[in-house]
């Protein structure tokens, strides 16, 4: 089976699922600098998409547009059937459906781990506290740090903090998870523990969009890889296609620099 056949097969398989994120010609400027130039892509339900690209290529900007941490100025973004506009109710609805994990964790330093996780479920989802804590402990179990529940973030290692951040996002029971360079701020020995959690999450059928520099993870877990440069999508394909037989010169150059 040729690589093109494989891509076709994946596309055929994905075609049966619903679109969950649709970006159509998304433009974004910072002052005079255009960070996104007509980004168009569709992400299906339960798909794991890894976004690669050199730094400054607009990958982080793009996924931050998807839950409106950044505001796009042109084109459309439709998440789970709701278009992102200035209407605050739409934004609130989408934000509670989309979980996000940041490069610098962004845990709340004045709250314990368990309070970090339960805050949003209690106040946004209106869960009773007991139920929320129960869920939080199960999630901590799932990310492998049940014993840290009553500590403060500052008392945890970077890898543990990032796993708490993942648990915090999952506690909202999101349909989509966005990862913005989740391992870039970690010491090498802690990267694996975070990636393991992400792999487990991918295998459980979560829709994920991951901006990362971890090529091994991309190759192993991604359904599709999107390669960006200078605010544009350059190439889209399966990991097999992308790593062994890229079609675009810019992709080849990028791969030659990092591999």
């Amino acid at each position, binding site marked *: 089976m040729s690589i093109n056949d494989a891509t076709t097969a994946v596309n055929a398989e994905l075609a049966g699922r619903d679109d969950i994120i649709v970006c159509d010609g998304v433009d974004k400027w910072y002052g005079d600098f255009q960070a996104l130039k007509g980004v168009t892509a569709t992400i299906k339900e339960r798909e794991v998409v890894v976004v690669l690209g050199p730094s400054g290529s607009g990958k982080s900007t793009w996924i931050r547009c998807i*839950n*409106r*941490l950044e505001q796009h100025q042109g084109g459309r973004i439709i998440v789970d059937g709701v278009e992102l506009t200035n209407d605050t109710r739409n934004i*609130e609805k989408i*934000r*509670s459906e*989309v*979980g*996000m994990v*940041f490069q*610098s*964790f*962004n*845990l*709340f*330093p*004045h*709250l*314990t781990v368990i309070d970090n996780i339960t*805050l*949003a479920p209690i*106040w*946004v989802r*209106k869960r*009773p506290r007991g139920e929320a804590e129960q869920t939080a402990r199960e999630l901590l179990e799932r990310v492998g740090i049940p014993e840290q529940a009553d500590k*403060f*973030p*500052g*008392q945890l290692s970077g890898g543990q903090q990032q796993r708490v951040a993942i648990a*915090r*996002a999952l506690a*909202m029971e999101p349909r989509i998870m966005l990862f913005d360079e989740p391992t870039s701020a970690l010491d090498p020995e802690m990267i694996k523990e975070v990636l393991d959690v992400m792999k487990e999450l991918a295998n459980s059928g979560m829709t994920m969009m991951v901006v990362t520099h971890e090529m091994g993870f991309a190759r192993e877990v991604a359904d599709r890889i999107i390669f960006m440069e200078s605010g544009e999508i350059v190439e889209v394909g399966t990991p097999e296609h992308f790593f062994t037989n890229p079609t675009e010169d810019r992709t080849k150059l990028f791969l030659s620099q990092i591999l």
Partner: protein
Amino acid sequence: MSDLLKSDVDLEAIIAQADEDEITLRPDEPSLPPGEWMRKNLFSTPFNSVLTIVFALGALWAYRAILNFIFSENTQWDAVRVNLRLMFTQAYPDENYTRVWVSLAIVAVLAGLSLGLSKVGRGLSLKKIATWCFGWGGLIVLGVLLREPSVKTDASGESVFADANGVELVRDDLGSLAYANGDPAPSQGLELIRESFGSAMGNRTGWWIIGLLLLAVGAAIWFGLGDFRRRNTFVPAIPFGLAGVGLLVSTTWWYGWGNYTFSEEGFTYEPGELVASSTRNPWTVVFLVLVGAYIVGRAIQRTERAGTVRAITNLSWLLAPFVTFWAVLRGPVLDWGYVASVDIPLYLLFAVGGGLILWMLTNPHIGEAGRIIAVVILAIAAFTWISAFFGWFGMLQKIRLSILFLGLAALLAPNFKGDAKQRMKLIYGWLGFITIFHVMVTLINTPSSIEVPTEDFAGGFMVSIYVSIFTMIFSFPLGVMLALARTSRLPLFRVMSTVYIESFRGVPLITMLFFFTVFVNLFLPEGMELSLFAAVVVAFVLFSAAYLAENVRGGLQAIRRGQYEASDALGLTTVQRTAFIVLPQGLRVSIPPLVGQVIATFKETSLLAIVGVFDFLRMARDVIPAQTEFLGVRKPGLLFICVVYFVGAYAMSKYSQRLEKQLGVGER
């Protein structure tokens, strides 16, 4: 032998305890011998040596000057001792004095509970106590040596004088000064004769004993207890502090604190009963209440209800100033007919009606209508305020305020949408708030039963402390709101808050005080007026809020952007983000400047003396020097209020350091 054995056992127990507590014991660094230490820290270079000597001489000179004033025969400490009651509570009538004690007892109950419920720290190390003993003992001994000798007195206790040549004079039968041979003394050039240094030292036995005793206790702890683990043994701080307070209270039983009586026409001193003998019973009761509350608090702390009781205690602290000031000290006279016909129906209207509206607004399915209703209520509130200034619809001030509060609660309502339990939280909050508000307003709107010669029943330290406390309570939320408005994304809020902050920071406080006490009543619509007390509190609140806002803003700016992004990504609303993420972190960072502002306010209350309030300072500056017995005697009183202000400010500063340390948990 058995003694030796016993002490060994003790030591082991202590060590075992220390291990159990996981107190990491840092091995004592071998301290330098004193000579070495001084050479290293004080005389390391010629320049440093000069600095050390100059500053040491300066400090000694200042210390000597203060001691000479305190112990001088010419300093009339009686002016303070006699007027203690006047300085603290002004002319608060004797027959109502129980109200003062009840207020103090309320504070004592809360203080005891809070201390009992607080988390127990490691306490005071014996090492620290030894250092204190050394410090105070050394200071006392130094003072005994430094202070100039007292004036010599003759057998009848009169001071002894000498003429310009140093020849000693005696008193003749009529009590006038003369030479020993009977020649009359010159009328000019007389000088007091002081004791010799030797006899001065001999006459200060009491101070020698206290100083040397302290040094001995310090040395006993430091050297006598050998093992360093003992020096790192901890004494519980709170019982230690309570014992200190107890010692102070016990002085009323053996020291003659003061003498007071108030005459009808003003503040003149007449010999009467000792303050000590009339206050020893109430002080003792208040102290016992404090200790009792502490013990109760300790007992509760071990149970599961500790959190609830702590929350109730904290809320009571917030209410205590209002309750003690308006309900206890002021002695309100209620008109029950009016209460039954106006106050209670109004209260029921707002409690029940407001509760129903809020119940409706927290309905999960209310949607857009909820926001509209909230805006309508706020609009009505705004209209009632505007119409007040044009005199259109006369209504009680508390109706206007109640509508405003209801509007604010309606704005909060969307955060409490959900099941019945969630919705009831807002309803309970509303009922509690509106009950307290209406009870307080009803009490405040009554005449006072306390008859005093001045405009307001509060005076002296009482008025200073209440102005400080009310300023803190009201300026804090106002300052936080201003800070949030100034960092808000909405330009209107930003501009309004900036204008407010900059204009109030640009005006001297004393000008504001004059403005509010003199002019504001002229601008207010008919039917509204500010009493002197209310006027100064408003001025202080508005002034202090501007500074607090800047401090809080500093804290808000220290919050990293990621915190905002994380809370946005989780779908928290702006109100939730502010309440749970932004303010807790921002306020923690701004604790030191906030406490600085509180201390500044506390000290600035002394400006009240200038705008005609009989405050603490005015007692010392104007009232006492006007008494016939103490005409023109200002210095002792002023020094005394300095000490009282210092103790208050220092205590607050220490408390803030502790608070910072406590809240530092989990940071970084």
